[in-house]
């Protein structure tokens, strides 16, 4: 594989074992991927899928058992963490408790032997960028979780790394703050033009922020693509199940003769509640009984037990005139069927 100009990071057949020699576990299993320059790239997966290990391999906090990691065409796999031009925002923030915010932010530049005046200037600039002016003299223990998060980001960004690695960086924040920081992170990535690699188990976060997503499954890549591709064209049941809600029904109950898993998203189907009501499209219509419904404000989820015994979920923006145990029909949009290998 030749690294193109726009390829910032090329990971080639990287494998990492954990555990004892008798019982090795492949945390990362012969994995290859390419991250482009100025890309917001997300590693998504459940805990234990190897996404954090992969990030730590890029940071140099773990060493590869095989394979190579090319940064701008040069193999950085043999380099220790302190020699790699990448910086990490840790899940726990890992701010130095005995240093002020300004000292924390200046630490990386200080270790590189930069001029103290330059360090101060850069620290002030990055505090501005973070909208944290005037916090330089505080200690981390005097900051809220969201502010500590910003300092951790500032401490990494100030070094102008070739890649910024974010390890579940938002998961410790509460819901509202997390939404704010998602927007903030996108803004920072646009303004700094730094390549971001973001690790998360939150599929919503991944969909809303990423240019591309790699869904990881047991140390390998389940699927790599844009959020739209991952959401609408998942290649496996694993990916479809992990991203959002996906209904799977047997091909037979849709009147199809293919030997595949057929799925559809809750919003890609409509609930027909009146007898004789005509579906707007000519896709498959499945009969069943309403099992449960849950109101979520903008959307209401209807759980339907089909005549075939399978349960599917349908989403509608309106509160339909229907009660639990009523007979209903589910009309599926034919274009939106997801076909996965069994």
């Amino acid at each position, binding site marked *: 594989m030749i690294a193109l100009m726009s390829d910032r990071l090329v990971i080639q057949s990287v494998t990492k074992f954990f555990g004892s020699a008798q019982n090795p576990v492949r945390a990362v299993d012969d994995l290859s991927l390419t991250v482009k320059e100025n890309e917001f790239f997300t590693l998504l997966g459940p805990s234990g899928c190897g996404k954090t290990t992969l990030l730590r391999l890029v940071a140099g906090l773990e060493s590869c058992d095989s394979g190579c990691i090319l940064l701008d065409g040069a193999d950085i796999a043999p380099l220790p963490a302190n*020699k790699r031009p990448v910086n990490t925002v840790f899940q726990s923030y890992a701010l130095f408790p005995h240093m002020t915010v300004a000292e924390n932010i200046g630490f990386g530049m200080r270790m590189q032997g930069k001029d103290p005046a330059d360090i101060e200037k850069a620290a002030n600039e990055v505090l501005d960028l973070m909208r944290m002016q005037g916090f330089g003299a505080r200690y981390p223990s005097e900051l809220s979780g969201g502010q500590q998060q910003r300092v951790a980001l500032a401490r990494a960004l100030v070094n102008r790394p070739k890649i910024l690695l974010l390890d579940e960086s938002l998961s410790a924040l509460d819901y509202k703050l997390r939404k704010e920081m998602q927007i903030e992170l996108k803004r920072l990535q646009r303004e700094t033009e730094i390549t971001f690699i973001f690790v998360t188990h939150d599929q919503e976060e991944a969909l809303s922020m990423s240019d591309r997503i790699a869904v990881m499954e047991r140390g390998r890549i389940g699927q790599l693509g844009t959020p739209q591709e991952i959401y609408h064209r998942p290649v496996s049941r694993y990916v479809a199940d992990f991203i959002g809600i996906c209904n799977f029904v047997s091909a037979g109950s849709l009147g199809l003769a293919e030997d595949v898993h057929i799925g559809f998203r809750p919003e890609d189907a409509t609930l027909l509640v009146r007898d004789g009501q005509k579906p707007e499209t000519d896709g498959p219509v499945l009969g069943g009984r309403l099992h449960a419904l849950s109101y979520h404000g903008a959307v209401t989820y209807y759980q339907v037990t089909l005549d075939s015994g399978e349960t599917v979920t349908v989403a509608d923006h309106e509160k339909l005139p229907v009660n639990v145990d009523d007979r209903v029909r589910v009309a599926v949009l034919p274009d939106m069927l997801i076909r996965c290998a069994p």
Partner: protein
Amino acid sequence: MRLSSGTKLLLPFLAVMTVFFMAPMCIALAYSFMQANPLGGVKPAFSLAGYLRFFYSPDLDGNMHWDMRYLQIIYSSTKMAVLATFICVLIGFPMAWFMATRPAQQRDFWMILVTIPFWTNLLIRTYAWILILRGNGIVNTGLEKAGLIDAPLDLLYTPFAVGLGLVYSYLPFMILPIYSSLERMDWRLVEAAQDLYATRLRILWHVVLPAAMPGLIGGVILVFIPTVGSFLAADLLGGGKQMMLGNLIENQFGMGRNWPFGAAISAILITFVMIGLILIARRGQGLKGVVG
């Protein structure tokens, strides 16, 4: 007087503190202002003789003259204690680091090894060093057998032996507090420093050392205070050639039969240690977020 329930709960603690810590100190302080009884003990009459004797000595005509000898003992004891404490840090820190970096299930084993010396009496352990250091002891015999020396080295009854004895006796008091600080250290901070271009040495200096500082300060206090007032090592391994403050105090209560003088020296030692502790505490306040 009505006491709040919180104060009542504190009473047993205060009682223990009074009986075991305050009362002996107050008795010693009171004795230091009394007259000596040549048969031992004190005469219950006020006198500053104990303190005067520390700084002045009478000549044949009974005139008092400024006398530096006891101050010199303070100076040499302090020097010995500082040196011993410093060496304890040099040895204790790497040992604590070693212990704290073992897998969790192995740490208890190392803890027990460090505390084994406490299972037996300090006096016996100090005697053991005589056997090791003396002319026909293990060290000299070993070196002679190896052909490295022709005649036995003078190891016993030297300042070296005293220092060795002090370091040996008090090293665990340095290791354990540093270990407890290092064991609680957030190792993710080390990774963060690594990620931020710090070399190993700089990680040690900028991250590990500040994290170990509470334990280090605790260790320094726990080692320095007993060494500055110790008398066993100087007695047994120094051969009484080198007077330390502890020996001086011990003598006044024993053969010297001058309890007020001994008590006065103790009071002076306590004052002096207290000033040191206050200085350390002031310095500690500068280490915000670490000690706090």
